[in-house]
């Protein structure tokens, strides 16, 4: 029997994009970078930026980087747009770690991760803070290969393509953080993927496989720990405070790859799927690429609407651009739902993994009793969307809870780009040639040729035998 948690929903018979090849999305046009409200922009409109140029930073000097070179089109609070000039001029970020892993200390390791701006591939929280605050407490590393959203398959495909690099990344994190035990969490149906990791040579600790259930939302770190170790971590605590460091496979790869190349995270692996998609598949997209560019790889059907996130946990976020924690772009076609009266079936209560009562929160939200909701565990919601999915009356429970959670914070819920950018794009269509006139721009010759010619498709073809990467093998 697979390891599992209470609640959640079992999904069957959904096609997914597992083992479908990765294609690289075009990155021409405008790229937009989003960050939470505590980030302040550190570029001005009209500036020329390169790859690895910081665009926004927070008070802890954690940066959001540009993944292309070009001119800054607009600067708003929490959003910077850059027009790609297609040249991929690269700035120097830090010296790539090419020597032995013993040569860098733990502090520099964490400093490099912070400099590279690595965030969790699913959670979107900075990785360095986990490592910094959790050092000494962390006893176990849990690497997640689980994805439970219907259609989603990019994480497993990624793990399949880059297995050698991920293994090196796991070894690096274990060695630097002094972790001796590591668990690789696979979905119970993906035993073939686990075989690829079985023969890896982990010299500095014990690594075991754990097979967890396919229930949604099994991929959430807290529930993964609950399934494997039977440890219930309340929402007021983080996993690392209790000794578990949960990282997804892509994050581990990013840590390894950024240190090796001395650059920020540029690419994000995505699944592109939905009933509005002409074909489903996996995409590598530069962070900040517009959804239209990603969708153009596989094509969409007429009237399709592009949504960030999956079928169940999808979110209409501000700005239709790829973020560091976007995992799926769903092409869905509009349909009307007609919510009906609640029949008190209690399915939402049984489905909730956090054991809150969604329908009660909804009723209180409708009658405007926010304080009552806070008492009943409103902020315990992890927005997995199980309740909305199982509701036979189509009540938008998740939407109501999210709205109530963000009541104090002003967050516009639109899927259109900010108005300023839209107008900028329109006005710049005529003067496009002027904008792309490189001679007028400040000259820069510090190109990183290795990264400039970096192509993921070639990379996959070259590195499937796993000979690359010798920097972190400790003696």
């Amino acid at each position, binding site marked *: 029997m697979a390891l599992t948690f209470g609640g959640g929903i079992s999904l069957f018979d959904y096609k997914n994009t597992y083992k479908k090849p990765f294609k690289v999305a075009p990155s021409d046009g405008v790229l937009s970078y989003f960050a939470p409200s505590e980030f302040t922009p550190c570029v001005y409109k009209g500036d020329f930026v390169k790859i690895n140029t910081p665009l926004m930073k927070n008070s802890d000097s954690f940066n959001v980087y540009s993944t292309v070179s070009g001119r800054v089109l607009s600067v708003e609070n929490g959003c910077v747009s850059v027009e790609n000039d297609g040249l991929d001029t690269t700035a120097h970020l830090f010296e790539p770690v090419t020597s032995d892993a013993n040569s860098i200390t733990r502090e520099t390791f964490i400093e490099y991760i912070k400099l590279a701006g690595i965030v969790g591939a699913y959670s979107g929280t900075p990785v360095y803070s986990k490592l910094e605050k959790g050092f000494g407490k962390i006893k176990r590393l849990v690497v997640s290969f689980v994805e439970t959203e219907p259609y989603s398959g990019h994480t497993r495909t990624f793990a399949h393509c880059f297995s050698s690099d991920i293994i090196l990344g796991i070894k690096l994190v274990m060695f630097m953080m002094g972790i001796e035990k590591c668990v690789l969490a696979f979905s119970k149906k993906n035993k073939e993927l686990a075989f690829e990791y079985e023969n890896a040579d982990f010299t500095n600790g014990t690594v075991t496989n754990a097979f967890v259930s396919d229930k949604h939302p099994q991929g959430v770190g807290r529930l993964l720990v609950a399934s494997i170790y039977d440890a*219930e971590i*309340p929402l007021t605590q983080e996993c690392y405070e209790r000794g578990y460091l949960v990282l997804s496979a892509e994050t581990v790869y990013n840590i390894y790859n950024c240190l090796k190349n001395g650059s920020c995270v540029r690419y994000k692996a995505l699944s592109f799927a939905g009933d509005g998609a002409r074909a489903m598949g996996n995409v590598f997209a530069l962070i900040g690429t517009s959804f239209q560019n990603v969708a153009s790889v596989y094509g969409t059907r007429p009237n399709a609407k592009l*949504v960030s996130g999956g079928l169940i946990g999808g979110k209409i976020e501000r700005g239709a651009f790829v973020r560091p924690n976007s995992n799926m772009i769903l092409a869905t076609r509009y349909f009307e*739902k007609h919510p009906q009266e609640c*029949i008190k079936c209690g399915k939402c209560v049984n489905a909730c993994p956090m*054991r809150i009562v969604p329908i009660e929160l909804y009723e209180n939200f409708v009658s405007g009793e926010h304080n009552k909701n806070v008492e009943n565990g409103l902020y315990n919601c992890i927005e997995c969307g199980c309740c*909305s999915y199982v509701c036979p009356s*189509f009540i938008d429970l*998740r*939407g109501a809870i999210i709205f109530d959670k963000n009541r104090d914070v002003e967050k516009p819920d639109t899927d259109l780009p900010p108005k300023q950018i839209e107008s900028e794009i329109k006005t710049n269509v005529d003067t496009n040639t002027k904008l792309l006139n490189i001679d007028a721009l400040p000259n820069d010759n510090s190109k990183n040729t290795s990264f400039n010619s970096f192509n993921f498709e070639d990379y996959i073809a070259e590195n499937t035998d796993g000979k690359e990467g010798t920097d972190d093998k400790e003696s």
Partner: protein
Amino acid sequence: MAKREQMTKKVEVRAPFIRPHRKDIRIMSDVLVAAIPPLIWALYCFGARAGVIFSVSVVFAFFSEWLYDRFVCKKATADISSLITGALIGFSFPVSVPLWLPAFASVFAIAVSKKMFGGIGKNIFNPAVSGICVSYLLFGKYMTVFTKPFAYLPAFSVSVDKGLLDSLRVVTPLENLKFGKINISAISDYFYGITPGIIGGVSSALLVISFVYLVLRRKIRVSTTVSYLFTILVFTYFTAYADSEPIDFTMTQLFSGAVMLTGVFFINDYTTTPTYMTGKVIFGIVCGGMTVWLRYYGMTHYTEFFALAVSNMLVPLINKYTRPVVYGGKILKEQKRQRS
């Protein structure tokens, strides 16, 4: 009401982005499908009059809801929950009942017990149960005339001739139990349904088939039914007063009256039973215990419905004390204790 609409309009996040393929109508139609096996047995056992009683209650339930929506609520609602109420009311009468009585029960159930409390999802009492209970309180003498099976009564006459009824009237197993008499050889007949009783509740075997269907279709959970039947089994086994084996007494209690009908259909109503799993089990225990208690010290027939009506009143209390603890809540409490 206007505020409610405003608040629901504000919510624009529309996940799940999936075409609706599960509707509440599907749940209700599955319950109606589950009602087919007992109905077929009723037609075979009690003749066409059973079908007429069933149709009258269903039609009156549906039209009373439609008229109430049309002229009182002034908006159209589209659900078929009233058909279920009508079907269950039709199941709960003996075949000798005059035809206006199921009509009255249906109208009362829908108009008073369901719609006046605010419609679907807001009623305190199970509408069908309240319709039957009120009918019994007001017109009890019509409802306790049980005729023997396979004696077909005239189908379309509004009330059956009294002389005919007297000639066909028999004593039910429940009435025999009151005096401690058990017919051991007839217990298998009780299970298969060759026994006097209410239309839908005589054949326990077919009701088990309905139950299995509903469970396989994932429309109901096993917990409430099992706790209800198990409670009755345990209570009657240890308090058997007849001069035979206790198990015969228990089996007679389980397979006569409306225990199986209640256990399969009435007790699994979504609205009037507790929301949480522990609460559902407690509800089954309370309802089963109340049924046995009423059978011992109270009336003879229709005890299940009165027990259910009383248990319905306890639902808010049960819900309050069986609320699940929020994820991690126990650990937080322990930490607070340790600190203090």
